[in-house]
C-alpha cells in the first residue's frame, strides 16, 4: 500500500488494501510478541480501516489536536488492530510494530494514551472505554466543539454492567456526537458468547435503551463506510452500528475458533496466515 496517499480519504477498494496491510501487521506484531489477541483484532480490522483512512477528522502530525475526532477501542485487548491503523496512518514509524508487549515499547499489551501517539484513551479494563466516550461527547458538547467520538466495543464486553450504564446515559443526554460500533464476533475468552453468557436480542436491547441501531456485515467495506457516514448524520439520539463480524477474519484456522481469542501463531502458522491474508486481494 506504499503507493497510497493516506492523507486523503480513501476509496473502498483502497480501504480493502489498507485492511490487508493492517491484518498482516496484526499477525506480525502478535507473532513477534508471541502473545496478544489476534481473533478480536482481525474481526475489527475493516471497521478501523474505514474510520482511520476515510471517516475520522484527524491529523497524525498533531495527535493532540483539540478538534480531532476521538477514537476509543473499548475492547482494549484488540489493540494490535489500533496500533496497525495508527502506524499505517503515520502516527509513528512501522518499526515499533515489532516491539508490541516488549519492555520499553510504546505499544503496551493494552493501549496506553500516555505512551502511544494517537491513542485517545487508555483502555484494557472492559466496559470503561464506552463510558469514557460518553464523557468525551459531553465534553465536546459543553465546549461547543464539533468533533465526533467513535467507540468500538465487543460483544463479550456487553456482559459488563457499566456498558449499560453508559448506554442509559448516552440516551439521557441524546449524544448524537458519539457513535458506538459493536464488533459482534460471537466469541469471548473462554468460549462462544452464547455458551458463556448469552446476550439475547442484541439489537432490541440497544433499541430498548433508546439507541438508533444500524445492522451491517462488518467485513463489507462499502457497508461499513456507508454505516459510519450515516451514523454521523443522525441527530438527537445515539447510534450503535451492530457489525456482524467473524472472529479471526481472514485466517482460515483462526476464523470462529475460540482458542484464537488470545494466542500467538507459531512460525508455520504465521506464514500460512500471511499467505491467506494476502490472498484476499487476489
Amino acid at each position: 500500500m506504499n503507493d497510497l496517499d493516506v492523507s486523503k480519504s480513501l476509496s473502498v477498494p483502497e480501504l480493502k488494501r489498507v485492511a490487508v496491510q493492517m491484518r498482516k501487521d496484526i499477525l506480525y506484531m502478535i507473532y513477534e510478541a508471541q502473545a496478544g489477541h489476534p481473533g478480536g483484532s482481525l474481526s475489527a480490522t475493516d471497521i478501523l480501516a474505514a474510520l482511520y483512512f476515510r471517516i475520522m477528522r484527524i491529523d497524525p502530525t498533531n495527535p493532540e489536536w483539540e478538534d480531532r475526532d476521538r477514537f476509543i477501542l473499548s475492547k482494549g485487548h484488540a489493540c494490535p488492530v489500533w496500533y496497525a491503523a495508527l502506524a499505517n496512518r503515520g502516527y509513528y514509524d512501522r518499526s515499533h510494530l515489532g516491539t508490541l508487549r516488549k519492555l520499553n515499547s510504546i505499544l503496551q499489551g493494552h493501549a496506553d494514551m500516555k505512551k502511544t501517539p494517537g491513542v485517545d484513551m487508555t483502555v484494557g479494563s472492559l466496559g470503561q472505554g464506552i463510558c469514557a466516550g460518553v464523557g468525551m461527547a459531553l465534553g465536546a458538547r459543553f465546549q461547543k466543539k464539533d468533533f465526533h467520538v467513535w467507540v468500538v466495543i465487543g460483544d463479550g464486553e456487553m456482559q459488563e454492567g457499566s456498558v449499560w450504564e453508559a448506554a442509559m446515559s448516552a440516551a439521557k443526554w441524546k449524544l448524537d456526537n458519539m457513535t458506538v460500533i459493536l464488533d459482534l464476533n460471537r466469541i469471548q475468552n473462554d468460549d462462544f458468547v452464547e455458551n458463556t453468557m448469552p446476550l439475547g436480542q442484541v439489537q432490541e436491547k440497544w433499541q430498548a435503551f433508546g439507541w438508533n441501531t444500524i445492522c451491517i456485515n462488518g467485513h463489507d467495506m462499502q457497508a461499513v463506510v456507508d454505516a459510519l457516514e450515516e451514523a454521523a448524520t443522525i441527530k438527537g439520539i445515539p447510534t450503535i452500528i451492530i457489525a456482524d463480524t467473524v472472529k479471526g477474519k481472514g485466517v482460515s484456522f483462526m476464523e470462529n475458533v475460540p482458542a484464537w481469542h488470545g494466542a500467538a501463531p507459531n512460525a508455520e502458522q504465521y506464514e500460512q496466515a500471511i499467505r491467506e491474508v494476502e490472498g484476499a486481494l487476489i
Partner: protein
Amino acid sequence: MISPYHFLLPEVESVLLNSDFFKTTKKHATRYSYSEALFEVAEINPKVVVLDVDVGKSLKTNEFAKKYPHRSFNFGIAEQNMMAAAAGMATTGLIPFASGYAMFLSMRALDQVRNSVHYPHLNVKIAASHSGITPGPDGVTHQAQEDLSIIRTIAGSCVIAPADHVTTKMAVHAMAEYDGPVYLSLTRDPVPYLYTSDYPFEIGRMVTVREGSDLTIIANRDLVAHALVAAAQLSGQGIEARVLDCHTIKPLDEEAVLKAARETGCIVTAENNVIFGGLGSAVAELLVENDPIPMQRIGVRDTFAESGPYYEVIDKYGLTFPHIMQAAQKVLDRKHAFNNQMAKGEA
C-alpha cells in the same frame, strides 16, 4: 501567656477543655463545605463541571445544578460510568468534580479510578462524602473505613482529608488548580469548625496547629479536633503535645514527620480509617526506614463498626480523644523506656 495553638478560632481554643465540647461547639458537615466551595471555583474556572450519582440532595450539589444546569451532570446510581466518563471529560480539557459516597467511589468504581483516571493521570477530582466512619447511623455498608488506604496505594494518587469547613473549602480551591487526580475525603456528619481563614493550606504540607515537645499527634479529617482536645487535656497533666493536621495523606509531608520524630521522640497517629494502609501506616513506613521511634496508632482495628449516632460509634470503636490520650500515655512510657535503655547502652 503565649498560646501554643495556631490558626485556631479563638472561640474554639477557649472551650477545648469543656467536657461538652463536641456537643456544644458549632459544627458543619464538610460535604456541604465542598458543595459551597464549588460555586467559588466554578466562578474562577470555566472548565470546572460537577458530576454526581443521585447524591445531589445529600451533598447539596443540587444547589450547584440549579445555578449551573449546563455544568452539572447527574449520572444516576452509576458510579462506574460517572468515574470513567469523568476521565473522558478530563481528556477534553474539562475539570470534572465527580461527587458521591466514598464507599462507592473508592470501592465499586475502584477499577475505573485506577485504570481510567490514575493510570493515564487524568485531571479528575473525586469528592467522596461519607468517608471513614463519618456516617454513624447509616451503618457498615455506608461507612467507608478503608477508602483512604485504598486510594493511597494507587500510583500517582493524591489523597486529602481536611478537618473542618474552612480547610475543606481551601482544599477544593487547591484541587481545582492541581494538575492530576485528587481524592477528597468528606464527612457525612457535622464536625467542629476549627480554623481561621489564616490557615496556610497547601497540598502535601502538614500544618502545626499546636506546639509541643513531649510527643506529636498526627491526625487527619474528623480526628484533628479530637487530637486538639486530647492535647489540651494532656497539657493539664504537664504533657505538651504537638499536633500536626495532616490533611494530605499522600503525598506525605515527610519533612514534618521526621522533624516531629527528631524533636519530640514519639508519635501518635489518629485517623477515622482502618489501621491498615492509611495515615498511621504512611507515618510508620517512613519512620521504620529513617527514625524508628516509638509510635502508637489510633484507627479502626480489624473490625466493622455498626449503626449509631456518629460520636457514639467512633467512641465505641476507639477513635475519640480519650483513646488518643491513652495512646499518648503509652507512647510516652515507651519513649522513656527507650531513652533509658539508650542511656544505659551509652554508659
